């Protein structure tokens, strides 16, 4: 199909406009983080400050509890992502391949969990976790995040498994593999893009979660960075420079993570399996 020159131009312009729109807040975050305090208000609406400095970054790293928050977030988000992805892979595979009693009910039940506003659940969860000693603990957060992310991640993984032809497993079984070997040696390698997507999705969700982190954690020891960011807001002022610097730092792991998995996200691994 031949696309006209004007069409191409319009297409590119539309993408550019979208990118500008989507990335502008990020740009602003970076811009404020490198603006020295004395210029913060005087040059508030300039696209780039006349002088830049990394003083906010230095302050955040050296004088705040931010490294601790950062470490906590990393532990919580990574554990959640790994646990959820393992559970969701197994559950998604079962939903995709096996017919069993109560399957429809399980799916409906999982869907149901996605229908409640999370705020409604804060109080009961707090009530449940307190006697177990899981408030103010990273383990408690991981459990809560896992519970909330498993249903969606399972649906996600199921759709990836659905996309893999059943004949591949049948061929493997005839070649001499057990169901589990077929899953591990044939299906799982082909689901890497799905696993990467699920890991990324759950990691970012857990990384940026605020509501439960705020409600279940008090004090700095187990605070995650979204909670930590709030500590830059005091009663009388907001320290924008430091807050933005912390925000930029918080972006780094998420970026690194996606860099790591993007190879799998874009790769169409199943090409060539069956006729096509």
């Amino acid at each position, binding site marked *: 199909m031949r696309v006209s020159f004007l069409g191409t131009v319009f297409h590119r312009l539309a993408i550019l406009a979208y990118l500008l729109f989507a990335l502008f807040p990020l740009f602003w975050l970076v811009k404020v983080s490198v603006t020295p305090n004395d210029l913060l208000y005087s040059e508030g609406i300039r696209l780039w400050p006349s002088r830049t400095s990394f003083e906010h970054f230095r302050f955040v790293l050296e004088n705040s509890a931010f490294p601790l928050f950062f470490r906590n977030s990393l532990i919580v988000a990574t554990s959640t992502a790994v646990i959820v992805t393992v559970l969701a892979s197994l559950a998604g595979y079962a939903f995709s391949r096996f017919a069993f009693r109560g399957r429809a009910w399980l799916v409906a039940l999982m869907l149901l969990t996605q229908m409640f506003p999370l705020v409604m659940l804060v109080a009961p969860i707090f009530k449940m976790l307190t006697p177990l000693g899981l408030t103010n603990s990273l383990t408690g957060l991981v459990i809560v995040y896992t519970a909330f992310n498993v249903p969606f991640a399972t649906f996600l993984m199921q759709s990836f498994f659905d996309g893999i032809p059943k004949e*591949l497993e*049948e061929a493997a*079984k005839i*070649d*001499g593999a057990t169901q589990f070997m077929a899953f591990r040696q044939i299906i799982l*390698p082909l689901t890497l893009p799905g696993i990467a997507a699920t890991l990324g999705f759950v990691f970012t969700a857990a990384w940026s979660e605020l509501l439960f982190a705020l409600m279940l954690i008090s004090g700095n020891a187990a605070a995650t960075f979204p909670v930590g960011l709030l500590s830059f807001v005091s009663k009388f002022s907001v320290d924008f420079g430091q807050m933005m610097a912390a925000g930029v730092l918080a972006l780094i792991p998420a970026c690194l993570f996606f860099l790591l998995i993007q190879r799998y996200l874009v790769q169409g691994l*199943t090409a*060539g399996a069956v006729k096509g």
Partner: protein
Amino acid sequence: MASIDIDNVRKNYGAVPVLHGVDLTIKDGEFIVLVGPSGCGKSTLLRTVAGLEEVSSGEIRIGGARVNERHPKDRDIAMVFQSYALYPHMNVAENMSYSLRLRRAAKERIASAVSNAAGKLGLEPLLERRPKALSGGQRQRVAMGRAIVRQPKAFLFDEPLSNLDARLREQMRAEIKTLHRDLGATSIYVTHDQIEAMTLADRVVAMHGGIVQQVGSPLELYDRPANLFVASFIGSPAMNLLKGTYDASGAEAGIVLPDGTRIALSGPYALQSGTEVTLGIRPEHVVLSPIDGLPARVSLVEPTGFGIILHLSVHDLPLIAFTLDRTRLQSGPTTAIAFPPEHLHLFDGAGNRVVRAN
């Protein structure tokens, strides 16, 4: 290699029966083709032999041993799928050796089995390639290679050529036949293509509605179809079928068509006069322009290159004739036809073949 016995096998999906008690004995080294229209149960039957579907009742034996409860991996069979089902993350050599690696075969044995199979199928230059870098025909070969490296008890083919274009299909058909001649492996081959069935099979099993309609050599099915289904399914262009009533009066028995035309049969049949029957004649057996024949109108002439298909109507009954005589291309709007009695097939009201009473 082994024989396969299928003993009164039934298969239901919920309340829906798909196989109604299939019996079939496949001899060691025999090439059996299951043929029938979509949904006739042929693939399901194959999958029950493979162990990919459980039977609802009945027994399947491979090499004399009951395998109903065995997993596919413990049945020692190989299968070629319609979609090839190659493992996309493995190269050709890895695809072919997967079964041997699962069995922890010695490295040297794997290497020799793979190179042997690759040699037979002309895959040597492709061993390092991934499936996505192969053409349809090459993928098909790899799927075959994956089956033969193992020397299993039996080969199962599930419409292996359906995804190939016509030319390649012919070529692969011949290769499969050669391969079977060389390996002598017991094979069950599922297809809806009657040419594949006719050309490949030692015996053809025609299936319809989950019931085996006829088992026999290809020519047996062609020359003596057991019932109307087989008569109309095997052969292209399909057999002409005309409804009429049996008439034993007069010097020789005959069939009276609805318009009153009487067609003579050779010899009496074990039928009452006035019985509703169906008369069958293959298009190539319709004789054109005999000395004294039925007048027929030519409604369409289709040259196939090899021969000519004539669409005729005899007193408004549609009829197809096939001839190799090219002068027929210029045939006028009318002609005459005759039905040689020795080529007529007779089927009773239930659709079953009626044989001559001697």
